[in-house]
């Protein structure tokens, strides 16, 4: 049953492909329409968009790229799945009937939204562009001729009307431009920005010129045949009316500006909230769920809680965390000593389910000896976690001008260094050996019952001094 339907739709597509030379999925259609330029691609895009806007009928969008005036013809062609040249020709022909083509074009310009930035742009061949300009000229010509024949434009109305049209086109195009600019820059300008983009002077001049053209055209049409006094009077009354309207609508404009700002702030807040919610969900909620499952094992619960606490703390207060300004002066290269120590402590906390308190004073960039120092410290913490039998280990690292010292201390069992069997090489190799290979020293303070403290010291290279100062 399903198969049959599948075939049915397949045939349908093939049929459409044959009538409209478009859909590339249809084998028959593809062959016949292959040489006709960009039409198949655009039709396919229209089809895919129709699928995307599954709710309601597919919407028409004006083309963003590859347009001549406002992308209306291109958009309509995409929407209908026909070649753009036919649409343009239709507009041109319609223009002959009392300028209907122009009016239709204008209405579509106003009411059809521009394709958004995310859509892939359409490219047009130079030949198509040439055709487009030709058809545009033809449309204008036909309008004038048609107007002259039908006597729609008596006398010299035609010229001012044309001036008005050009003015309107200029301003509207600028509005499209500014919208595109805002897409590029991520929408953060106000009302002025909505009209002028980013208050660029060229845009301002263009809008002003458009307004001047429209005003002149309308003025000429209205005042034609009147004498100078009447004109003056009319101008003054128009100005007075405009001022009156402006004053009356001030609250409205103010509210619009405020609403815009309010809306933008609300959007930023929502995004912020969404980010926090997402983070809390990924981290805290997951951990809480795990903790509920592990409720019988206090050790595991403590381990989970500690790991989660460290992660959240890092996110809130850490150098690259949520609460910090975006630009951090921490060097990115190999990480810092503090980061290295924190990472080592966190690792041991997670592995051995103990708590490792670490304090780092001063800051230094991790070079090779310091990386070895961190490794040695990690080894010492692991030893404490394994053998001391305590829940807490303290780590203290201090960066001094000439050396970096690290202390790893527990209050556990302690041991007699003389009595350590020779085959246990944790301390000898991984700590002492590592330190000495890099020019550092390792001292040990312990005795049974007194806890253990491993003291590590690594001399610093003199030229690393500059890396201080970040906390």
């Amino acid at each position: 049953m399903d198969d049959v339907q599948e075939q049915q739709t397949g045939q349908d597509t093939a049929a459409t492909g044959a009538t409209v030379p478009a859909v590339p999925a249809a084998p028959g259609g593809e062959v016949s329409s292959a040489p006709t330029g960009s039409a198949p691609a655009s039709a396919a895009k229209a089809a895919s968009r129709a699928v995307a806007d599954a709710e309601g009928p597919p919407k028409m969008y004006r083309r963003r790229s590859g347009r001549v005036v406002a992308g209306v013809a291109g958009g309509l062609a995409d929407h209908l799945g026909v070649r753009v040249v036919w649409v343009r020709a239709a507009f041109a022909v319609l223009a002959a009937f009392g300028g209907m083509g122009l009016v239709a074009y204008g209405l579509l310009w106003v009411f059809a939204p521009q394709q958004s930035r995310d859509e892939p742009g359409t490219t047009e061949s130079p030949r198509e562009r040439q055709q487009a300009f030709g058809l545009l000229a033809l449309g204008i010509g036909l309008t004038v001729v048609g107007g002259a024949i039908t006597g729609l434009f008596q006398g010299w109305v035609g010229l001012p009307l044309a001036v008005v049209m050009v003015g309107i086109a200029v301003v509207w195009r600028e509005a499209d431009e500014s919208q595109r600019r805002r897409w590029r820059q991520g929408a953060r300008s106000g009302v002025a920005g909505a009209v002028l983009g980013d208050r660029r002077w060229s845009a301002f001049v263009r809008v002003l010129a458009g307004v001047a053209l429209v005003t002149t055209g309308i003025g000429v049409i209205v005042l034609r045949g009147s004498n100078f006094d009447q004109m003056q009077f009319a101008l003054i009354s128009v100005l007075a009316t405009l001022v009156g309207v402006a004053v009356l609508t001030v609250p409205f404009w103010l509210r619009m500006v405020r609403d815009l700002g309010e809306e933008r702030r609300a959007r930023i807040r929502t995004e912020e909230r969404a980010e926090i919610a997402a983070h809390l969900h990924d981290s805290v909620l997951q951990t809480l769920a795990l903790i509920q499952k592990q409720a019988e094992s206090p050790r595991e619960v403590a381990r989970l809680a500690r790991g989660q606490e460290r992660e959240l703390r890092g996110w809130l207060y850490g150098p690259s965390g949520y609460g910090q300004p975006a630009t951090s002066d921490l060097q990115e290269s190999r990480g810092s000593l503090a980061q290295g120590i924190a990472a080592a402590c966190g690792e041991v906390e997670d592995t051995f389910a103990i708590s490792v308190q670490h304090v780092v004073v001063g800051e230094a960039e991790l070079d090779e000896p310091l990386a070895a120092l961190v490794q040695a410290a990690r080894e010492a913490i692991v030893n404490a976690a394994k053998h001391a039998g305590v829940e807490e280990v303290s780590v203290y690292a201090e960066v001094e001008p000439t050396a970096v010292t690290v202390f790893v201390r527990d209050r556990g069992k302690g041991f007699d260094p003389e009595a350590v069997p020779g085959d246990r090489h944790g301390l000898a190799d991984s700590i002492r050996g590592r330190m000495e290979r890099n020019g550092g020293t390792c001292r040990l303070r312990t005795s049974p019952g007194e806890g253990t403290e491993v003291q590590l010291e690594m001399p610093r290279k003199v030229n690393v001094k500059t890396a201080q100062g970040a906390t």
Partner: protein
Amino acid sequence: MTDSQQPREPVSVFLVDDHALFRAGVRAELESITEEVRVVGEAGSVAEAVAGIGRARPQVVLLDVHMPDGGGAEVLRRLRPELPDVVFLALSVSDAAEDVIAVIRAGARGYVTKTISSKELVRAIVRVADGDAVFSPRLAGFVLDAFADRPGSEPISDPELDLLTPRERDVLRLLARGYAYKEIASELFISVKTVETHVSSVLRKTQLSNRYELSRWASDRRLV
């Protein structure tokens, strides 16, 4: 001396934290493990705290750093001038340097994190009640860091306040390494009383010094 076992009046404690659950937990723990401390009241907001502490007159206030309406620093600012005898011990989940330094500079006598064990919390309360300062290892680390001599740091205007003595530095280092006062005393061959004096002196410098790092942390929180 705090380690003496002779019976004494329990220290009256007031809890300020905006999480009721946390207050209940601390109160239960304190009351179950020791006779040395008695909880005399609690508050969940800055306004409640200001009113409640004025009424209850506790010896020690356990103060949460993060609360709506300005947090612990705001409580300190409002109450310190009126009640100079009440001692504040900051208790917080935050380990951020700004928070720690800010609340110390606002007048708290110590700073401990909420993960502290109940036994240590009691010890800290008794210690601040006796007029000493309580430095967690992390706070000691921050203070050392803030007083460190850096190549680019500002010139010292008041050596009395802006520099730590070598001894104070030693004491802070050992504190940061997790040593208890008694251990520090035996390590440095001084008495516990002397250790306490050094720590109090460091606290005073932390509160009063105008060193750039300190005032920067404080002014980030608009305390100065």
